[in-house]
């Protein structure tokens, strides 16, 4: 670690809403999708916060809003003491060197017509930075650092495998020595043997440069491997946040219990005998989220109160926050599972339950 840990990022009550328009010749705004609805989080240097959730949870929208790739509807984003939520694009440009992004799909995140050298040196050109020793030397050093052959400077992305392309993306992200890197599902498109290589690389770079990672992923085992703290999102809200050991061994939110229990364990003896909480149906549509607690329609703890009262995110023990009226411990869940008393509500009967339906299209990121 390069310096004593200090706060890099503080997000307060972040909200990102997308308008829903009617179809036809003259579309009107008929509602809104609250993709991110009141998210608060903070991140120190040298620290990884894992942001976990299923599709439609708003984790990617939250991450992109924090980098101002999507304009947030409300809330504050403080990056190293600077408020960036309302800055203009021009005023943002010098800030962008502090915060970079690594994308999920290494095939689409790299321009196929540019050489690797051109791709990795783009941040220098855009920010007008002249690294000591020249751009080419700096790029080749970066390539070496991420495990690429510096002699491949003039090659094109299609000459590299998926894992190598993700290394190119990592080299580009660290070129300007940022403080924060938002990693959006950085390994989920990679084969398992390559995933582990990239996770190790990210860990090494974090230790070397004191990087803060906001690590967005759906794979709970991957998040456990890399994160110091974890936040679980569901339908635009953070429902639980804790340090990694607490989140994986002593979660309190019924949704976190269900998620952890749904991940198959690669050991047939354990996997085929363990008690599991089987949620029914899918995540409800964010256009028409449930009243009160957003998880109540699939929750085995739900009671009448959950339908009327939104549970606030409360710190139950230091560094462990839960948004639930009826939190439940691991032991209580296990005892109830043994007694066969975990009753999960039936799947909802709404016709268009699809999150990825044709109703709204998430705007793509403008080029940073």
């Amino acid at each position, binding site marked *: 670690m390069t310096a004593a840990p200090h706060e890099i990022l503080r997000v307060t009550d972040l909200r990102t809403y997308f308008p829903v328009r009617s179809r036809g010749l003259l579309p009107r705004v008929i509602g809104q999708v609250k993709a991110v609805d009141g998210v608060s989080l903070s991140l120190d240097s040298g620290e990884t916060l894992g942001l976990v959730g299923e599709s439609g949870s708003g984790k990617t929208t939250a991450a992109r809003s924090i980098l101002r790739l999507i304009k947030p509807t409300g809330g504050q984003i403080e990056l190293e003491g600077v408020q960036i939520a309302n800055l203009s694009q021009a005023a943002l440009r010098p800030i962008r060197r502090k915060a970079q992004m690594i994308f999920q799909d290494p095939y689409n995140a790299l321009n196929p017509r540019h050489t690797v050298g051109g791709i990795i040196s783009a941040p220098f050109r855009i920010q007008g930075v002249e690294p000591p020793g020249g751009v080419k030397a700096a790029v080749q050093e970066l390539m070496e650092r991420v495990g690429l052959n510096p002699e491949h400077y003039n090659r094109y992305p299609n000459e590299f495998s998926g894992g190598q392309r993700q290394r190119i993306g990592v080299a580009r992200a660290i070129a300007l020595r940022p403080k924060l890197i938002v990693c959006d599902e950085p390994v989920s498109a990679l084969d398992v043997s390559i995933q*582990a290589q990239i996770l190790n690389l990210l860990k090494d770079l974090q230790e070397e440069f004191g990087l803060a990672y906001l690590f967005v992923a759906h794979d709970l085992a991957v998040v456990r491997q890399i994160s110091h703290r974890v936040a679980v999102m569901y339908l635009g809200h953070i429902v639980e946040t804790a340090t990694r050991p607490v989140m994986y061994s002593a979660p309190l939110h019924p949704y976190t219990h269900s998620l952890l229990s749904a991940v*198959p*364990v690669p050991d047939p003896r354990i996997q085929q005998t363990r008690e599991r909480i089987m949620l029914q149906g899918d995540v409800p549509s964010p256009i028409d989220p449930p009243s009160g607690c957003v998880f109540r329609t699939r929750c085995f703890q739900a009671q009448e109160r959950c339908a009327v009262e939104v549970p606030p995110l409360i710190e139950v023990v230091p560094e462990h926050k839960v948004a639930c009226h009826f939190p439940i411990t691991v032991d209580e869940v296990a005892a109830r599972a043994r007694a066969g008393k975990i009753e999960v509500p039936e799947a909802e009967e709404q016709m268009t339950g699809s999150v990825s339906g044709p109703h709204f299209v998430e705007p793509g990121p403008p080029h940073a």
Partner: protein
Amino acid sequence: MINVEEREGSAEPSPERPFLSIENLFVSFNTEDGVVRAIDGVSLSLERGRTLAVVGESGSGKSVTAQAIMGLVRSMGGHVSGEIWLDGQELNGLQPEEVQALRGSEMAMIFQDPMSSLHPFYRVGDQIVEAILAHRKIGKAAARKETLEMLKHVGIPAAERRIDAYPHQLSGGMRQRVMIGMALINSPQLLIADEPTTALDVTVQAQILELISTLKEEFGTTVILITHDLGIVADVADDVAVMYGGRLVEVGQTSTIYEAPEMPYTLGLLSSIPRMDRELPKRLDPIRGNPPSPINLPPGCVFQPRCNYSDRVANGACLSVRPELLPTAPGHLVRCHLPAEERQQISADVRRILAGAQR
């Protein structure tokens, strides 16, 4: 039990042939860059009612194996040689119309993306009715009744209404259920599931895996599950075939593959995955390097360039001699030049490290 034999040339059909038997299967594609050898000599067989997981990374040939069984490779421009016996019938020598008659009735397939087998313009119920009428001579009303029963069976809530829904009106998990219902509507003997849950959220994945297991028990279907996820394999498979570079590299019962794997690639895979049931290792232990190009496979062992142990084999055999898939224990086959005792020692060492996670 799974039986695998390396056989040269074609075998005479015998009455005791297992339910599914693939013999010396080769599949290649001509591309601009050269000949892609997608499957490079695969032989394996499967007993009725079992679930076989075919595990491998992208480019390992696992999906092409499934497509070859379904008779889909030729229409994709591939060359197939070898024999595929399903329930006493050889498939590879059949005419396209004959294979088509079997597809959907004797054997069916479900895909990662349900939209690839559901037509966006037609109501889901009508699509299943069409699948029934394509193979059986029954009335339309009877077919619709059967469709409704099947939709209820695969866990579609309010099936009476959803039978008339279009695919886009259903969620991802619902579409997957519809596709499974459509695949099973003609009671196929063999169901091939190609990454059936990869596009789904984990809570929905758990539901779909449970559904496949339940239906398999109920219908007595033999299942081939193609996946890269070793957690899913542990959940549902009876037998496992590990593929790498177009070849089978290790085959055995699921418990054997997880508790006593011998092929260095299988060990590497098990070491690579972050897992939640163990102490957290400081670092993962990945397989180094990248998978081989299927256009330019290594001449000896396909895994040699990434293997940590090939220098322990005398005369550099791994570089030049192609290892055979040989039995190391009953029902357990391994393709590796290392002597069995040495493989078992390496396996024990790696598993001890994994269990303690001291890295």
